[in-house]
């Protein structure tokens, strides 16, 4: 009777420990896949973000350039004097350029105001997304390393290492995520340069 109770107890203990190792191992596998998920995300997000910001910057660059060159023409810094008709045409073009921009308030107010430039906002947003995306990636790596540490510690600690010995399926070699030696050297020497 006593032996039976002990056997049942041992069986339950075994099932509990076995499952514990399995869940720790699967955790590592899942955390590892998180890294590639975040890597994939980074590639896609950066591509689309940079493209859209570039587009906006290009638009603003050409708008400003056009206005400035038209303004130069109308002021007639060099060359022959312009007729009234020509001058009027250029002024109209400038107004049109300005009105095409973000301002939709009254015409009088916007005559000499340049279209509101959004590039700065866009860049700030881009910066936030870059920081966040990089953080997500490194947190995924951190979580993977932590889960691996837990798994390694579990399968090498006392009762569990015996189970692992008899069930080699439970033991799997993972490598901590880290840079190679040469890469560490390169990264160490990096400095911010303007």
């Amino acid at each position, binding site marked *: 009777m006593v032996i039976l109770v002990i056997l049942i107890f041992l069986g339950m203990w075994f099932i509990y420990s076995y499952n514990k190792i399995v869940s720790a191992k699967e*955790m590592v596998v*899942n*955390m590892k896949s*998180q890294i590639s998920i*975040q890597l994939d995300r980074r590639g896609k997000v950066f591509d689309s973000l940079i493209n859209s910001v570039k587009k906006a910057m290009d638009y603003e660059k050409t708008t400003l350039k056009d206005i400035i060159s038209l303004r130069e023409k109308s002021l007639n810094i060099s060359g022959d004097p312009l007729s009234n008709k020509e001058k009027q045409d250029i002024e109209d073009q400038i107004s049109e350029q300005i009105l095409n921009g973000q301002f939709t308030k009254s015409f009088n107010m916007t005559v000499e105001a340049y279209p509101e430039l959004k590039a700065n906002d866009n860049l700030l*947003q881009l910066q*936030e*997304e870059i*920081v*966040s995306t990089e*953080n*997500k990636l490194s*947190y*995924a790596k*951190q*979580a993977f390393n932590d*889960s691996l540490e*837990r798994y390694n510690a579990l399968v090498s600690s006392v009762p569990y290492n015996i189970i692992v010995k008899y069930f080699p399926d439970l033991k799997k070699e993972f490598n901590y995520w880290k840079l190679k030696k040469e890469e560490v050297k390169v990264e160490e020497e990096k400095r911010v340069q303007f």
Partner: protein
Amino acid sequence: MNYREIVKVNRNKTFIALSLFLLIYISIGFLLDIVISNSVSMTDTIYKIIHLEQIPVATISMFLFGVISIVVSILFFKRIQLSGETYVEIKEESKKYRDLYNILEELKIAAGLKYMPKLYLIKADYMNAFASGWSEKNTIIAITEGLYKKLNRAELSAVIGHELTHIRNEDIKLTLVVGVITNIMLFVTDWISFFIFKDNNNEGAKNAKIILIVLHFVLPILTLVIQMWLSRTREYMADAGAVELIRDPQAMASALKKISLDYNLNDYHDNNVTRKAAYIFEKEDSFLSTHPSIKNRIKKLGF
């Protein structure tokens, strides 16, 4: 202790708190039944109830009242916790407060959580934050606008990490349950006094009334004890959990410093009592407060 063990302890505590609460309710109901029926003795009432000669109206209604108040608070925790302030939900697609959403998403990855808590911004000047909820899919983190404006990105990460740890450790369940229990308990003690003056003077009723009078004074103390039992260590653990996620104790310490300094400089009022126990920071620093002092918390972070 890793968080799985903490979760286990917290689940047990939640269960014990709930059972204790219901037990107290039933006993109060039973005592009220004795007073109402003007019983000769306690055993007489028990005998009558068992033999279906008397329906224990007060016991049953107190029990139902207890269960309903728990269920209601679990179902409507969000409204209870956020009530009294205007707030906005920050969603995945919102452009404003984008960084706040990003930070939460980052820390969710760091914590290996499988679900995303809902994020709310409370439109208030004071600096505070809390997490609440019951089941995994139904958790919220709320942050005041004052906090959002006055902290930098690293400090915001620390605060959100703190709240996320409360969620991961399942502290929120216990906080929610105990917050509701204590508030209703105080409400019930007021009720009791109404029955104490009832003019039923048989032996049993008299005894029951004496116990009720004692309870009237003991229950408020008991609620304090329960709140203390929530234990301040949970705040330390949440601070430590945040540091484990962001690996930056400096940010956690400076966030706490900024919050307490802000509270010292301003005189903020918040009337929502259930929220108090859930906050990251509590101003009153007596030996009865649910939160440890900022000084001690910063010291534990190693500064």
